[in-house]
């Protein structure tokens, strides 16, 4: 033990400070449904307040050493960002309708702007997050983001995508090590090899799921050929075929989606452990101990609940996932958790923040 060689006065006292999540599904459901209704009634204007309340709900209920986090963003600022973004996206949609060529130019411009938007979003989010009235910060200059982006794109193209684990490491490193809490910089010690290893496990799992899916389709197709003979019905009877395809898609598709959560849970659990577990905030370190099987149970439960409730179980699913993730997160404090705030405020705007929100959704909807 190092205590032998150092005087007790400067030996840091190490203690585990767990992240405690106190949010409840019922309480959040009521807040969520009011958010949804008011957002719809105000044609989306309230969504900025809804975002603030949602984020604040999860922040306040996430406690470290007895104090919850705070989300400080001004809804008006969020609203401004959203208006600008909706206008930009509206222009893109209009271009898509009226001039596909200009639309492609617009999309290209959007992609060129995306590193800047991402940095702006990270800056805004960090700046609006606080614990014990000390704010987080994200300090990377935009030029660094562009250099990194160029490297990532270049590497991906040159290696035909095989460098993705490495580029993901670069990006995670960029995000993790450019944050600060007060005057304490974050650092990240996860090695590229750890993420490469993760991919080496995950890719075969993913391929196995797809292989099973195709084997399943083949079986159904074969069965479809044989069944009319077995049942003695007319070959290629549309009604029989209709039933087979119906049954197969009703049972098969959800099973396929459920099966996909297996590699996804494995990847997300391990990735979270590497990402958060590799972090230090000043002298303090973080431990993340998510387990594949546990996260998978959470994912599958959420999926079933969402499908059966036609989406109304959303708040329950979100609270459950957050509670699990935070229950596996621990701050290992080396010394007291007292941090100086550091220098004063820098300029932030809400545009980047909104870009993150809507940007992710656009990818979802395949714009």
């Amino acid at each position: 033990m190092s205590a032998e060689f150092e005087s007790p006065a400067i030996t840091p006292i190490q203690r585990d400070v767990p992240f405690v999540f106190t949010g409840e599904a019922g309480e959040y459901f009521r807040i969520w449904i009011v958010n949804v209704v008011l957002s719809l009634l105000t044609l989306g204007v309230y969504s900025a307040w809804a975002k603030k309340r949602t984020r604040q709900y999860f922040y306040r209920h996430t406690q470290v050493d007895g104090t919850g986090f705070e989300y400080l963003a001004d809804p008006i600022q969020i609203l401004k960002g959203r208006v600008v973004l909706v206008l930009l996206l509206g222009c893109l949609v209009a271009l898509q309708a009226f001039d596909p060529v200009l639309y492609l130019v617009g999309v290209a411009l959007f992609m060129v702007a995306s590193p800047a938007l991402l940095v702006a979003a990270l800056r805004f989010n960090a700046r609006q997050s606080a614990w014990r009235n000390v704010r987080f910060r994200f300090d990377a200059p935009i030029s660094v983001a562009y250099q990194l982006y160029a490297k990532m794109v270049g590497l991906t193209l040159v290696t035909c995508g095989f460098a993705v684990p490495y580029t993901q490491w670069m990006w995670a490193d960029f995000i993790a090590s450019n944050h600060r809490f007060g005057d304490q910089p974050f650092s990240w010690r996860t090695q590229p090899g750890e993420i490469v290893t993760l991919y080496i496990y995950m890719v075969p799992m993913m391929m196995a799921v797809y292989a099973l899916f195709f084997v399943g389709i083949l079986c159904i197709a074969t069965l479809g050929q044989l069944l009319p003979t077995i049942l003695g019905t007319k070959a290629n009877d549309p009604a029989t075929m209709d039933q087979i395809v119906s049954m197969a898609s009703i049972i098969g598709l959800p099973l396929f989606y459920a099966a996909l959560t297996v590699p996804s849970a494995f990847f997300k659990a391990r990735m979270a452990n590497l990402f958060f577990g590799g972090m230090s905030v000043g002298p303090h370190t973080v431990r993340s101990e998510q387990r594949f099987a546990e996260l998978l149970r959470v994912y599958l439960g959420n999926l079933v609940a969402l499908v059966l409730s036609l989406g109304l179980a959303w708040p329950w699913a979100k609270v459950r996932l957050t509670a699990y993730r935070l229950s596996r997160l621990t701050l290992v404090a080396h010394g007291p958790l007292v941090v100086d705030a550091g220098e004063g405020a820098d300029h932030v705007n809400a545009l980047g923040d909104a870009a993150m929100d809507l940007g992710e959704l656009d990818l979802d909807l395949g714009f």
Partner: protein
Amino acid sequence: MPTDHRPRQPRHDAAAHTTQVAVVWFDGQRSEGVAATLALDANHYLTLRDENGQLLDPEAVCPARLHIAPPLGDTARTFHFGGSGRGESRDLQALAALEHALGRGWKGRALARLESAWPIALTLGALVMLGGLAGLRWGVPWAAEQVAIAMPDDLAHKVGAGTLRVLDTTVLKPSRLQTARKDELRAGFLTLAAPYDALPLTLHFRRGVGPNAFALPDGTVLLTDELVALATDDRQLFAVLAHEIGHVHHRHGVRMALEGAALSVLVAVVLGDATELGNVAAGMPAALAQAQFSQAHEIQADDFALETLVHAGISPRHFAVIMRRLQASAGGPDRSPVTTGTDPEKTSADGALRYLASHPPTEARVARFATWPEPQ
């Protein structure tokens, strides 16, 4: 003052009429809290004192400077006086009493009441569910139709203006039909289009995407060589073209774009950060709704085709014939083929997947055409 520094309950001191709130004060310089008491006296003077009675923020005298975060569930509330310090309190009752004494915070209280009542939440949940389904089923298509109809002609016809150029450079190849054959078909097309002289309809011939026909919002109607070859009678082609003119007439291209945009907004509002729980749950309902919108358009274009064919003196049975030939050519009676639509890449399927297909099942579509009485 008694020595209890952190009162759990608001204290309405009968003598002094003060409201006291136990708080923790963070000065904003360091992440270190100080236990303190926020007090409002009968003269509306505010004080913020630590356990030794020291004033912590000299600004904290004037209630006008006090900002208290609105209540949110049972979480601790924060407050500040416009400076860098912030306080936080779990003494929610006392804080509410202080706000009440200042005559403030009614908006936050109203919202909190709304958010804390289960009957309200469950009613709203049911309403959102029903309203959402009704909005998707009738509201969105109706609104898209109204906007599309209200759109000035030249604007509506500009939608998708560059699409043909893009298709030509990607999937479409020039037609190999003889000029005379093209002229023949074009003449028939113009006869069909004659009643709709307000529409800028033009017929173009291409090949390369299998037997198909599609319409663009600007009035461009495309017919593939493969479909011409599949037809056994030109009237079958005219039947398909009538369906395509229906898409242009009803502005289905514009409506699809509007319906798609409305869907994205709805999904964004209801789910917010849907990406967290995987995209499947968010994507499926949207895909389902979009497919239903598309099927409604197909049926409307079929209605139009029926009317136009009868008007032009062409038996609607030709539509049934060509549709069945198209289906057969796509490989068997179980899978309906690419047929006609505003988009060349649409397929339709039967079974449960039919709800996710852009086109309704062929047999259901052609029934009324196939049974149309032959003129004697």
